[in-house]
């Protein structure tokens, strides 16, 4: 057990160190591309980490998580379009809008379990997708270009690639720290208890669904932050961000990295997006290789990459 813990820790430490030092490497080699790519990876890793909170720890298989990416993104995009460029307004609005959306769809969908829960979260996300597609003032299907990134006064300049990268990385690490605290808190234990045995938790005195809902809202809010970052990263937001395949991608990242592990979603996001990048350079039918690869991992490494690392060091 001890050594398993160590190998995982080493890998996680290396990954985090790599992410922290990446801008240095990029600056020394002049490879700007890698910095842009990893900014995107980090943002989606944050989204995956937020999904992992409800999926891995809470046992709630949400298939509509990309909706929050869209809501966070549109909050930034619409406010920018209407002339409100301050990040101090844009970002809190993005978080609050995501939280409210999560509260509403959570309150409705958490009445169901299993497949029905998956389907209803999917349906709500698709609804958000179609609503965004019909916003003709904000570009409808074509999406909305964001001409100026969120303005944080003299504090940080998001147009500076390196500064923006570090803002995203800080959000990711901060988000993971928050999730770590939550998971080990009273609240977190209750949520994991409900995942394990809902009837038992009710019998010892917990209103299971209320804890589930709060967890659902926290998760959605964190993902809303990822949405705000993503819109700033691409200077653009469109309905496509919340299309159901994106929700699927997030789920794959979580499962690939290891559900219910703190850094699993980060590793999952890195591996998934790097593979996507590499394979798409080899062939345009990259999904044909990616599919079976994921299948193998799901079949032979139940706990994802984190589970695999644990097994390796156990020998």
């Amino acid at each position: 057990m001890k050594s398993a813990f160590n190998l995982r820790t080493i890998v996680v430490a290396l990954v985090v160190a790599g992410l922290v030092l990446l801008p240095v490497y990029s600056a020394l080699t002049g490879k700007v591309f890698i910095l842009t790519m990893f900014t995107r990876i980090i943002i989606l890793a944050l989204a995956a980490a937020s999904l992992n909170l409800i999926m891995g720890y809470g046992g709630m298989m949400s298939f509509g998580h990309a909706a929050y990416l869209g809501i966070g993104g549109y909050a930034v995009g619409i406010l920018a379009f209407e002339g409100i460029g301050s990040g101090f307004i844009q970002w809190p609005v993005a978080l609050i809008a995501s939280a409210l959306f999560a509260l509403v769809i959570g309150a409705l969908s958490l009445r169901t379990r299993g497949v029905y829960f998956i389907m209803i979260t999917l349906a709500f996300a698709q609804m958000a997708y179609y609503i965004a597609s019909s916003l003709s003032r904000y570009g409808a299907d074509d999406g909305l270009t964001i001409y100026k990134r969120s303005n944080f006064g003299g504090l940080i300049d998001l147009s500076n690639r390196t500064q923006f990268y570090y803002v995203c990385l800080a959000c990711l690490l901060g988000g993971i720290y928050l999730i770590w605290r939550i998971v080990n808190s009273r609240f977190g234990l209750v949520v994991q208890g409900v995942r394990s045995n809902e009837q038992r938790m009710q019998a010892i005195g917990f209103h299971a669904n209320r804890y589930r809902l709060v967890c659902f809202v926290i998760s959605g809010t964190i993902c809303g932050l990822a949405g705000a970052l993503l819109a700033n990263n691409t200077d653009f937001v469109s309905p496509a961000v919340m299309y159901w395949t994106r929700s699927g991608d997030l789920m794959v990242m979580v499962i690939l990295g290891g559900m219910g592990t703190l850094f699993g979603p980060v590793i999952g996001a890195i591996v998934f997006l790097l593979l996507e990048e590499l394979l798409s350079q080899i062939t345009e039918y990259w999904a044909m290789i990616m599919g079976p690869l994921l299948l193998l991992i799901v079949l032979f490494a139940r706990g994802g990459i984190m589970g695999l690392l644990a097994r390796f060091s156990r020998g």
Partner: protein
Amino acid sequence: MAEHLLRVENLMRRFGGLVATDNLSLEVVTGELHAIIGPNGAGKTTLISQLTGQLMPNSGAIHFAGQDITTLPSYKRSGLGLARSFQITSLLRDFTAADNVALAAQAHAGHSYRFWGNARKEAPLREAAHAALARVGLAKRADVPVSELSHGEQRELELAVALATKPKLLLLDEPMAGLGVTESQRMVALLKELRKEVTIVLVEHDMEAVFALADRITVLVYGRVIACGKPDEIRNNDEVKRAYLGDQHAVTRHG
């Protein structure tokens, strides 16, 4: 006149055409150990589930500690001091024994919308958990995951979890189910201790245990109460004899 901790009035529960609880009335006096027996399919677990709120009755009323709890959800009943153990062990399998019990203590020690502090480091909860584990003889197994505990240990843990909610009334659904002879004896000894502190409703197939422990016994057949009284009265009750003699299975297995 002793005080009634639990009073059930004319409880009815149907599953389609089957009447699982048929106009059932029952009173449990504070401090007693009240056993409920009956052949398989008599509706014992259905009754317990209605008492704890996992299942709602079609009609009738349940009063607990002077309060009408008929429509109260189970988590609120737990808050009032009603605890149950499950016939089929129902624990948090991926948690340790101590975690299982500490969570039960946590449910009754302030709210759990605390997102920051490490709950496993809350000394009062851990102490409560260890006290309950020690009570049932599992002190040394505190940090073992439930999935690695033996069946007998899991049955004991069920009891520790129920105890940690500081119940006024303990509803035990076949705590001896699947236990070997020595394990059963340990459980009986444990229940003998517990009954001094808490009112207990015991559903059990093990007749030897029931007659050794119970102050009063209620006999259920097809969801109806056919007799209620002291162990000696039940032993000599003709209707009870008939119900059990009519059910060869019950006699050969438990006789």
